């Protein structure tokens, strides 16, 4: 069981590196971030809140973009079909995919975001909050995205539809995330607890429903 998880995770990791998808998400994040100073005209307006918002928006879009190829290639070339016929437990596959997706779209952003925030605003007091709320929120992005990415697999206009349909589900997370990052918020722990609650429920619920969807949609 454990071994299989490791094998599939390793394979997925390797696929991400080999197909050059790995660098795409983090580059997109940085590119998206650069738009904000350009759009604001001059960096002196880029105060605290704007830099935090910019980081959250870029994270959101980078995750949305990365979501599309979560199951796409395995579906198109039939690997998922072989998994199902050969009774490889799909739960393990889904968890491994979620983890590898997070390793490439969540983790680099978490590591780089405090630095970006400091460079943008010259203000580092809220970096810890940003760090914690990103750690809590990016896995939720991945987990929520996973069933929706799975159920759009058969559609012809998958990319556009996926972005459109997933975004409303991300909105509550971004609301709590931004509230949690705000240093003036006295009741800050409440947001973290809420995100933690969503994460712990989501870790069970979303992979399960993804397995259901993959099984019924695969034919």
């Amino acid at each position, binding site marked *: 069981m454990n071994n299989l998880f490791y094998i599939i995770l390793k394979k997925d990791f390797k696929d991400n590196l080999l197909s050059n998808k790995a660098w795409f998400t983090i580059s997109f994040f940085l590119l998206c971030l650069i738009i904000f100073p350009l759009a604001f005209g001059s960096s002196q307006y880029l105060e605290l809140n704007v830099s935090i918002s910019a980081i959250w928006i870029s994270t959101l879009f980078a995750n949305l973009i990365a979501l599309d190829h979560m199951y796409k290639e395995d579906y198109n070339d039939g690997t998922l079909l072989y998994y199902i016929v050969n009774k490889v437990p799909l739960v393990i596959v889904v968890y491994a995919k979620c983890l590898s997706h997070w390793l490439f779209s969540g983790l680099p952003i978490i590591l780089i975001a405090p630095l970006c925030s400091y460079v943008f605003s010259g203000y580092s007091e809220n970096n810890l909050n940003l760090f914690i709320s990103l750690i809590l929120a990016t896995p939720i992005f991945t987990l929520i995205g996973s069933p929706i990415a799975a159920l759009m697999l058969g559609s012809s206009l998958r990319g556009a539809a996926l972005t*459109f349909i997933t975004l409303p589900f991300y909105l509550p997370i971004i609301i709590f995330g931004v509230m949690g990052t705000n240093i003036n918020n006295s009741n800050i722990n409440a947001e973290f607890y809420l995100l933690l609650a969503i994460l712990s429920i989501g870790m069970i619920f979303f992979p399960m429903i993804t397995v259901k969807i993959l099984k019924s949609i695969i034919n």
Partner: protein
Amino acid sequence: MLRKLHKYANPNKFSLIIMPIKNVCLYTALPLIAIGLIIGLFFSPPDYQQGETVRIMYIHVSSAWISLFAYVLIFFLSVFYLIWKFPLFVLMAKEIPFVAIIFTLITLITGSLWGKPTWGTYWVWDARLTSFLILLFIYLGLIFIDKAFKYNVNGDLSFSYLSIIGAINIPIIKFSVDWWNTLHQPASVIRASGPSINIEMLIPLMIMSTGVLLLFFYLIFTNIQSAIAEKKILFLSSKD
């Protein structure tokens, strides 16, 4: 010929069953709405706090209830479809989002028109309003997924799974006014300790809500009949 249409036998029967119900719905809905409008606009008393603007409540609250009720309906139809794999359920569920989205729009627009005189602003980003806006986008997503899978076998499954995932939003909307301290006033009619609202306002609200609910059912039933007929057309024109 009749035997070949066997697979639509049940939808056909259903179509015939809802025909009289549909008409009853329409012909009770219209007078109820008219009565509700007259009482609500001219005879009900103004609120002691909000004054005359409380008259917007009769359309705002009734539409809000219907947009929530419609999602619950979609949710249960989808669950039934996934359990029993009976295509009629998802066919019914797929007709609801378009009608429901209009009621959601009405709720949002009338709500913001009510908010300007009472709160001094058309829109605030508080929990109730934002979650209702998200409901609008979830309805849009449901319509979109229906269109994206038009001739795909998996369309029904995708639709029902998405509606189940989206159902997370419904308790958030319902309890957002209790969980967070927001500008929006807490629930005053549907709550555990009975309605706190004045009886003279409750009566027109109830009349209005019943009327609009019946109208909603009329529209849904008509759409379901059209959808069944559409399937029949697809079947008839696909065989040379």
